[in-house]
């Protein structure tokens, strides 16, 4: 694999794992972080998080990654799945 590709994947995986751990702790799930599918919906269906969980998740994302999201529909789209959160962190979060 080309070095930039493996570097890209490595940074994604690091953020992915961190986000999964945040979710597992926020929602007090008794499952392995790896069992959280990166594309599983977080709200409504999928992991079934609700609006109170969303509040805590947004605070954690701000505190851990410097990713500040206000809660408008466009912002909500960024936290639909773990992968969309990773996308947002890579694009808008603090440098690691």
């Amino acid at each position, binding site marked *: 694999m080309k070095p930039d590709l493996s570097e890209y994947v490595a940074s994604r995986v690091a953020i992915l794992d961190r986000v999964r751990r945040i979710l597992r702790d926020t929602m007090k799930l008794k499952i392995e972080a790896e069992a959280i599918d990166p594309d599983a919906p977080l709200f409504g269906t999928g992991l079934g998080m*609700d*609006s109170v969980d969303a*509040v805590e998740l947004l*605070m954690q994302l*701000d505190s851990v990654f410097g990713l500040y999201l206000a809660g408008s529909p466009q912002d909500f789209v960024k936290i639909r799945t773990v992968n969309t959160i990773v996308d947002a962190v890579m694009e808008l979060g603090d440098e690691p």
Partner: protein
Amino acid sequence: MSHAAQITGWGVASAIGVGRERFRSALFRGEIGIAPIRRFDTSAFTTHVGAMVVGYESDDRDPSVLCREFGLLALRDALEHARLDRNSLRSLRVAMTLGASLFGVQNTECLARGLLEELSIEGPSITVSTACTSSTQAIGFGADLIREGFADVVLAGGVDTLTPALFAGFHALGVLSEGPCAPFGRQMGTTLGEGAGFLVLERRGARDAVTRGLLRGYGLSGDAYHETSPEPRGRGVAAAIRSALDDAGASEDEIGYFNAHGTGTTANDTAEWCAIQSVFGSELASSLPLSSSKGHLGHAQSAAGVLEVITTLECMGAGLAPTTGGFDGPRPGGPPRPLGARKPQPLAYELALSSNSAFGGNNCALVFGGTNPPGPDAEESRRRVFVSTAAPLCAGVSRVEELASIYESKSAPLDRELMIDLAAELPRVDLRGIDRASELLTTVTWRALGDAGVQLRGKIRERTGLIVGALRASPDSLARFHASIVQRGLAKPDATAFAQLLPSAAQSACAKALNIRGPQSTITVGEGSGLMACAIAAWMLAGRSDSDRIVAAALDTRAEGAPGGARGDAACAVVLGTAPTSVEVVGIGVAGPHQLHEAIAQAQRRWGSPEPPEIVLAPASKPGSGPEERAHPFAGMPSTSSSFALAHAFGLLRRRMARSALIGVGGTTASVAIIVASTEVNYET
């Protein structure tokens, strides 16, 4: 209820005035008590308004100090209105039912105790801690105390104060409006407030008093839906309203005015309107005069219910209906024409209904009105109350039979941590995020209902209630909430922990997990709360017809690292019901603190037996209070130990090892005595 309690006075401390006179004139002028908050810094938040009690806008003393002051102001005001001076108080049996969910403060029962002591009143006090329905429920239970003959006068009401932590929690949940709230209006969100209010409820004929109104009935229900959102179609709210109408013997078309909970949030107002339409029918609902007082008073939380009833009573007496301050045009999904002017509007009506709802799904509605009694008091048909099952839980005890060996040997329960795995017992319930307190309570409630063969499906859910005696909010959630504020600042608290901070959080979580939708509440009397919960459950089953069984539960939780640690965790659920079993509740007594002998005498009289009970269990759990008390096995479990005693007595009677038993507790804010007897040898009065 067949004997409507008379209302002989009321008193207030509110955001539009302290004392009835000032309150009334401000109310009739249409004053809005919402203003920029001066008590604490709100710059980190997106909203900056609140409704502080007049004169206390900048007062940032300890919340329990403020609550006590508000409470005393309102109480003295009420006693004066009812023309009850020290002499008359001494010659009557006086009690207090207080709605208070003091945020994050432990031992809320001390507030009630302190208020009564200040007024030299020695009767019992029961604190109801169900957030926004606290004072509404307190009024209902106050009327019960009169109907049951435990008091001649009840001071029923509530107090609350607006603290930075409370403000931060609501703000994090996104439910605060930017400006002053507009219930049923276009601006979404609510405005927090504070205050205190009391009604003076009296038994008719107790003394020569002026009747200023009648409390005709009350109804309770639970949504069993979500920690903070109401069930969207208002199912629970509708159930409470119907139950109140039924209790009052009134039909929907007799209601001349409806005072809604109307917080202004998106979730509450639409659910409430759905409920109103469901109960009254869309035609009647569209012509029903309705309004919310929160536009004028803010959301006074534990004091909201009583302040809204007093608002209505003041207006009713002047031929007016309260209106909705801040109303700026109807919102989609809300009532099209609530009373929206700034000042109260002329309206003649005899009967009013007031409704409140709380986080966790508790709903309470009151029907009250003019001074004309509904008719001659109907013959009360009381039901007999039986004990179905009991499920005790603490380290080393998970069955009633295990209690027996501890009582007999007088040895302490095992000195180890209590391990439970609720997920294994309830595989089809989502228990994510459930905290320790809720897990304990749900475990014993599930086991007790299971042993009783009760399957919570269909109508049984609405006919099953839950009364919980607990002393404090969940210590874990409190710790987590405070830690989040320390780490992240007041503007970013842990919203999930906040939702679990209410003393009623465990009750709501349990009701949600098991689908219990009937009458429910969380109360405390300090020591003996579990037994008081049993007494309340028993009198509700006997004197009302809105449930067939009520789980009377007790809960004690210790924070990790506290003395005793998790070893102090305990819970007990006793299922009381109207279906006959071999053990019946034959006598109840309620009296003031340290008046156990009086409570016992009452219970014995109601039983009507010439002989005393065979077994007497009067546990005290204050450690180190005396050589006898130290020998009692369940020290350190103030709420649960008396429930364990009842469970143990039930076990003995069920196995025919005794034919009657007395369980009593002489606690710091109330004394309770319950006599149970085998049904083969029951004495009728």
